[in-house]
């Protein structure tokens, strides 16, 4: 008989978390930003689904005129690309909470939530109202830290355009510490992809040939095509090496024309 028996009840503890795998990746360019994730959701060794969405485009309404310019547009240039990775139930809850805050914020700016435009501005023209990336990031910190002692178990990444129209990526830890970065990977594949991106985006450990490793290669912005190549390479590679990553790759690209998305198949094994 166990020594505990009789003297005190055996404590069963309910574990309110699970690890649902997957990887999330954000890269900021000069005038664009990318947020990408795989579409697998898993638990232990089981694949729950091959198509789940870890990224939400939170956008002012897309007008007919914008659709005319480009049919595949899913958000305006003032969108927030909101991605979470980790415990999916918390990820969904956090996304929902932020979306709610975003809507009220836009509403409180005396804007019309239906059209996404302010009723009037000083030049008597309609101006789209939205939430700046800076404000969005600070709000997410508050949401996360508000549950400091029962955290949302997620790695959060926001992508969008800053107030100068430059691409930006904000990344968060589960309790709200955050930072603006050029690129960040979160989730299961983070340890495999992040060093690759350090090297390819921020040119870490790259020196000018012939300088005997004394002169660093100067940092410069990558083009959209170069970034997309990196994203695809990163995900196909991590799919090979990590069991919870695979099935599909969803990429969202935001620039001055708005948000568009791409889908690519990944290996299903």
């Amino acid at each position: 008989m166990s020594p505990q028996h009789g003297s005190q009840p055996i404590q069963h503890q309910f574990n309110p978390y699970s690890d649902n795998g997957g990887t999330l990746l954000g890269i900021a360019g000069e005038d664009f930003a990318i947020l990408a994730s795989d579409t697998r959701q898993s638990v232990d060794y089981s694949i729950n689904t091959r198509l789940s969405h870890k990224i939400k485009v939170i956008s002012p309404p897309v007008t007919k005129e914008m659709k005319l310019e480009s049919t595949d547009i899913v958000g305006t240039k003032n969108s927030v690309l909101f991605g979470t990775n980790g415990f999916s139930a918390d990820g969904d809850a956090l996304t929902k909470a932020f979306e709610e805050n975003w809507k009220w914020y836009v509403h409180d700016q005396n804007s019309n939530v239906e059209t996404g435009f302010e009723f009037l501005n000083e030049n008597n023209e309609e101006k789209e109202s939205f939430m700046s990336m800076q404000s969005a990031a600070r709000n997410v910190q508050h949401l996360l830290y508000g549950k400091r002692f029962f955290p949302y178990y997620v790695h959060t990444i926001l992508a969008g355009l800053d107030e100068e129209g430059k691409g930006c990526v904000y990344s968060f830890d589960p309790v709200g510490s955050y930072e603006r970065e050029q690129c960040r990977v979160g989730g299961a594949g983070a340890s495999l992809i992040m060093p690759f991106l350090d090297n390819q985006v921020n040119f870490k450990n790259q020196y000018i040939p012939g300088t005997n490793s004394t002169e660093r290669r100067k940092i410069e912005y990558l083009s959209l095509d170069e970034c997309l190549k990196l994203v695809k390479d990163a995900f196909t590679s991590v799919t090979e090496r990590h069991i919870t990553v695979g099935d599909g790759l969803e990429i969202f690209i935001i620039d001055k024309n708005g948000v568009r998305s791409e889908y690519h198949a990944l290996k299903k094994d």
Partner: protein
Amino acid sequence: MNHDPYSWGRPSDAMYGQYNNAIANAPNTLEHHSSGSNFNENTTRPIVTGTSVIAIKYKTGVVIAADNLASYGSLLRFQGIERLHKVGKTTVVGISGDVSDMQHLLTILDQLEMENNYDNDEYSDNVDELQPSYIFEYLANLMYHRRSKMNPLWNALIVSGVDSKTGKPFLEYVNLLGVKYASPSIATGFGSHLAIPLLRKLADSEEEAAELTLEQAKKGIKDSMKVLFYRDTRSSKNYSLAVIDKDTGIAYDNNVDVEDMSWKFAKDITGYGTQRV
């Protein structure tokens, strides 16, 4: 009357000396042993349980199945417990896990349906008719809310049906943690290991599910229920099968038996129990 002898009290230590707690592993204090107070009343483990629920989408609807057994540990305790439930006109909710929590969910779903009936009927053109997606959203929020209070409903639910407005098949899962997902085929418990490989062979994507016929889907589910009965010791031969179709509505059969079983392989199994090797 409290029938527990340990709470009847005993003479003071001054008269007979200290009580020897080693005898019969008696508790040190009455508080620890008496029911209530020190125990929390949350569900910390399931007691009477239902096993897998499995479901698959097809061209114009969804097929869902679950057996009619409620187990008490390894005891097959109740053999007439239905675990598929009609909610509204085009939704069937399949529930596995703790049966008392399931019955609690049913009272909630009953109330939901009743409330909906007050302000929604043919006179209002059924504009607020309960859709599978509404019921799922409600249940998913409830499950996540309860887990966040550290007082979960110990279940995994599959909400299946068709949207009565668009005719689109609906199939989504949520469990005690509030984790949710949609897929062309979904199974809980052992089904996720044994049935899902068979069902994904039929349809691994929404596109493939949109090509699947009712007959193919039904056969897939029936074969899966057979495999589950072969291999899941907490399953029963008797099960319920529901088909929710956009044209024909809900067809619900609560008395289906696993058919065409073959136990021939059993004679070749060696290594357990009484036998000649």
